[in-house]
């Protein structure tokens, strides 16, 4: 043990124990490889293509962008989120990591927070920038500040799907049990959001918030508040369940 005194020890304790190393690993696995630009390229191409079709009518082009941004990158989010916890539980790498001085809370948070950043950059912010430039090119430029603020609800939607999938991944062992609910939200979320009765009362209402911010037509704050509450609840549930998981 005395030989280890030549080293500067990690001082993270309690729930933070191991978080910085795990978060760094998740960020490196994304930004340190081709994953980040491949995802950015794919979704920039898809969203740019669909949006440019509608830019003859400025608002139509943006509406297409938001709807597509709520659906297509979400599929990639689902894939990333399923792999991040379910595969690690199944393969044994999670058990290896947890045999180190790592808290289970840190393990779950290191899946949720860095991946939120990865997804926001590659699947929302970069495609969003390109779509904005296309809108300028087509003479349908929205207010730049409003447009970029409108991407926050889009990021929150992707975070909702990430948190939901990770949370379900802590409860179940099979991919089929984990993905069905997020898939329903991906394909029917936009419809739910446009429903006047239940639209504002869930993360699905974030689509109308995004378009409302971008077009300046006003929006309800309920979806934003409810989504924040839901994210905290899903994160807490994931931590609670994972802390009881037996390897």
């Amino acid at each position, binding site marked *: *043990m005395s*030989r*280890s005194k*030549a*080293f*500067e*020890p*990690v*001082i993270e*304790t309690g729930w933070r*124990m*191991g978080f910085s*190393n795990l978060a*760094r*690993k998740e960020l490196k*696995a994304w930004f340190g*490889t081709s994953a980040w630009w491949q995802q950015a390229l794919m979704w920039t191409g898809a969203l740019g293509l669909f949006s440019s079709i509608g830019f003859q009518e400025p608002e139509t082009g943006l509406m297409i962008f938001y709807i597509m941004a709520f659906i297509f990158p979400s599929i990639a989010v689902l894939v990333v989120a399923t792999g991040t916890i379910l595969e690690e539980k199944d*393969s*044994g*790498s999670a*058990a*290896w990591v*947890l*045999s*180190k*001085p*790592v*808290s289970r809370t840190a393990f779950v948070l290191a899946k949720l927070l860095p991946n939120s950043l990865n997804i926001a950059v590659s699947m929302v912010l970069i495609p969003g920038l390109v779509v904005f430039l296309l809108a300028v090119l087509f003479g349908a430029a929205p207010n730049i500040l409003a447009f970029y603020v409108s991407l926050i609800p889009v990021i929150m939607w992707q975070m909702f799907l990430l948190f939901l999938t990770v949370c379900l991944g802590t409860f179940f062992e099979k991919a089929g049990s984990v993905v069905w609910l997020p898939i329903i939200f991906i394909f029917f979320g936009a419809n739910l959001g446009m429903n006047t009765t239940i639209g504002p009362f869930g993360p699905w209402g974030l689509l109308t918030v995004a378009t409302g911010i971008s077009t300046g037509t006003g929006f309800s704050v309920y979806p934003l508040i409810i989504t924040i509450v839901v994210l905290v609840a899903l994160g807490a549930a994931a931590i609670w369940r994972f802390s009881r998981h*037996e*390897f």
Partner: protein
Amino acid sequence: MVRPRVQSPRGDSQTSQQSFVISTQDLGKTYGDVAALSSLNLRVPENSIFAFLGPNGAGKTTTIKLLVGLTRPTSGSGTVLGYDIVRNSNEVRRGVGYLAQHPKFYKEMTARETMRFAARFYFKGPRDKIEERIEHLLSIVELDEKSDRPIEGFSGGEMQRLGIAQAQINYPELLILDEPAAGLDPEGREDVLKIMESLRSESTIFYSTHILDDVQRVSDTVAILNKGHMIAQAPISQLLAGSEGVAYALTLEGNTQKAYARLSEEPWVTGITEKKVKDKTQWVVTVSDDSMAKKKILRTVMADDTVDVLDFGLKQYELEEIFMKMVEDSNNVTQ
């Protein structure tokens, strides 16, 4: 870090000054109605190579997972390096190195990156010292040539060696290895055993196995587990001495009936086990008085002209014999 010490409890057969790095009290684990582990009282002395022996499904991996906090006990308690395995699991994991039965790392990482990742859970720096440590451990396990290749293409033996190296990164006081040589070819097994022997001066090694040859070669203390119950725990020399007192082995040729009858009548003979091997007869004679046995066994047998004695000596028990007998006895008791 000063850690609490667990001393031998009063009345223990070990010396009272002995420290234990692992100590469990009636530790148990059930899954539904199935008891994977029952009332385990394990004492692993400091600075030993301790073999945790048992057939498949005996509860060895369950015990190890309980010790490193990957699962929780349903009864009893335990300490590792003096820390409670439930309440102070974080401290336990700071002080031990662990190798799983089938180690799984992140396949996109290289061996060096895996070592760096493992090191960062314990050390922030200095970077050159960490790199030095990584280089040293990779060379011990002979992976220095492959250190920058993704581990995806590693063989089972290479993965196992990397597993031992990463488990050693934090200078652990205790190294816990779950079946470190299982599934390896003879060369791979030999490599792992050599590494274990070379690490003996740095850490106490607690390892599970069902390979008896390996146990006899590298271990100094053994515990035998069967169906979740511990059936023996002793220094290997004590175990090999046999549990039935002093015994002599004889290999004979010819008609042994009269010699058998004559020897059986001796008051100091407590039992004779006979086995026929081709045209020869093997006896194991257990005795209550060693000095009488030394003087009289051979004379008594050789008094009969129809018997030739081909071999005679003190019975040397093989671990396999002890193990098989103990497991068999334990199975008979539980039936």
